[in-house]
């Protein structure tokens, strides 16, 4: 599998003129692994051992209980992506590695954030919630917890807007992805 240079691919257009694209050095790998003891540690250990950088990592069982899927965003400036993938492939419990290009995959990440608000800021916050199709999970007289699931790039935008307010806590899951339907039917 040859690594795809994200720079050569067209940018994804989102809602009008907004352009959202991942960093060129970031690559999303979907790693299908055997659901065995210590498998996450083997994958994570390989990254640190070989000097590869993980940007985000999400792991959960798949539709087949024998396997889990690890969605991992790699910063491939630290090592050629090809080398990352072939080293991963050597792990006995790694069954399959797919590189998902942003154009060929549906990608979602979940963001949770708790903000401190006052009477003035709550209006703008609510507008942002509406604009980004986020939802309110909890709210009291001072604090509000919001969740939003969307493209990582869009969450970056949302996060940058919300950083104007006092953030009490913020947590993102790391992105998960599946190939677009057109690639599945092939």
């Amino acid at each position, binding site marked *: 599998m040859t690594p795809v240079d994200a720079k050569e691919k067209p940018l994804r257009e989102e809602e009008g003129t907004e352009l959202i694209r991942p960093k060129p050095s970031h690559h999303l790998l979907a790693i299908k*692994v*055997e659901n065995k*003891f*210590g498998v996450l*540690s*083997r994958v994570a*250990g390989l990254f640190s*051992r070989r000097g590869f950088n993980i940007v985000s990592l999400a792991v959960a069982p798949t539709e087949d209980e024998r396997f889990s899927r690890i969605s991992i965003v790699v910063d491939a400036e630290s090592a*050629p992506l*090809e*080398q990352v993938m*072939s*080293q991963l*492939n*050597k*792990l*006995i*419990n*790694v*069954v*399959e590695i797919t590189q998902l290009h942003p154009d060929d995959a549906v990608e979602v990440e979940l963001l949770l954030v708790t903000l401190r608000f006052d009477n003035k800021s709550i209006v703008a916050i609510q507008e942002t919630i509406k604009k980004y199709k986020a939802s309110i999970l909890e709210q009291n007289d001072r604090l509000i917890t919001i969740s939003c699931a969307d493209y990582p790039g869009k969450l970056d935008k949302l996060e940058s807007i919300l950083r104007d307010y006092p953030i009490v806590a913020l947590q993102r899951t790391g992105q998960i992805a599946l190939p677009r339907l057109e690639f599945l039917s092939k």
Partner: protein
Amino acid sequence: MELTGAQSLIKSLEQAGVEVLFGLPGGAILPVYDPLIESSMRHILVRHEQGAGHAAEGYAQVTGKPGVAMVTSGPGATNIVTPLADAFMDSIPLVVISGQVATSAIGTDAFQEVDFTGITQGVTKHNWLVTDPDEIPRIIKEAFHVATTGRPGPVVVDFPKDVANAKTDWNWPDEVDLPGYNPPGPPEPEAVRKALELIYQAERPVVYVGGGVIKANASEALAEFIKLTDFPLVTTLMARGAFPDSDSHHLGMPGMHGSYAAVTAIQKSDLLISLGARFDDRVTGKVSAFAPNAKVIHVDIDPAEIGKVRRPDVPVIADCALAIEAIVAEIKKAAAGKKSVFAAATKTKQAAWMAQVQEWKAMFPFAYDGKGESNYPGPIKPQQVVEELSAAADENTILVTGVGQHQMWASQLWSFAKPRHWVSSGGLGTMGFAVPAAMGAKVGQPTKTVWAVDGDGCFQMTAQELITCSQEQIPVKIAILNNAYLGMVRQWQQMFYEERYSEVYLSADLPDYVKWAESMGCVGFKVSEPSEVAPVIEKANSIYDRPVVVDFRTDSMEKVFPMVPAGASNDDILVHPSLRERLSREQ
């Protein structure tokens, strides 16, 4: 049939074909040592678990079979981490069974508990923690399969005490089920075709032979390839013996202490055919200056080696033997009815190239002061010892080394004839490797003479295994090139640290190696004069019933040449002082 987990393990090891294991018992592995009494397998009781691991490596290297070691939990397990790392670097098939505390105690900091699968994750091809006694046969079958197929390597099976004591059934699986493990087999025809395109056009080719050729038992295929193409070749430290040194095509070892001809031929080549080699930094020197004008064909069974250091023009991901055989078959097909597969003009250029590399070989041999002088006053040159040992050896003699200057002299000056007759620690550079590895080699090939060339620093690290050798009647022979220094470090301090010698001097009179050898049941000799070297080697070679240790007192200040300083380009190779004038004329 109901049996215990321990019995199931022993039975599984027997079923996997294990004949010998090297080990040392302890608390957590105790239940496994009990049924071992009735087993047909030979167990060799080492004095330190590191010895068990290196012995298993030596056994594997000379037999081509996996080496097996068994240790207890905690310190027993951690003591074998160095051999695991060594085997991982040098792709040696090793199966290590480690005791573990009971599953109920795991994670509680129990007595002699370490997280051994965690610790060995980075130095094994794979490892298993057995939690279900019914899975023992399956895991053992998988362990041997993983260790010995594809790019071979070490594996660990961590075996908790309660699993050993539990009752279970024994069912040997017909097949292994490892969906994520599919080692490459034969090469893609397209890759072979592209490789041949480069081969037919090459004017200054060099075949760069690595340890993969030994692992794949590809020496015969290699010999045929060389016969068909007439290309010169080099063999790396891991590949010594893959092709006879006596053949004129052979330019010797490349790399930091390689021969001038091997290093320079690679630098000037226009095609580098890498067979089971991995462009190690000790071979390439400064990577950006390595073989700058060469196209590269890279044959390797491990896809991760392709492009790791040098991006090849033609990658061939395949078993080395199958790849070379496929290339040979195509060349034979192309040659049918023709005088040569090469165009006449290309053939002429190749002949000129061959003449050039032969000239380098003749002009820049491995030189040392006093070479060939019968009345050289001494002290003994370490190179003389290796040359005399080699001269007195038959072609079935196995040579083992530790790590350092003595290793380089052994690799440079021994005349290798056959594969699997050379055992050395390459990638990890493990001092103390020689004595236990020699023991394992002798166990694997009991009818062959096994000589270890060792350094005095190395010998002191693992010499206790000579007690094992004496007791188990494993008559190895050890030649200590004793320069009273950690010689290679001293050489670097001399050359690159302005002769500021920091913590490298051992001792000229401690220990008394003859007494030490005798106390371990060996015959001991001490040799101080150049004229005594050959006679004592002859004496040592006539002893068959017990180990022999010869303490050769060698020149303390002798350096290994040629040398490419660390990080420098291979073009900046330093030759022996006696050849420098010749080299400057050449350049």
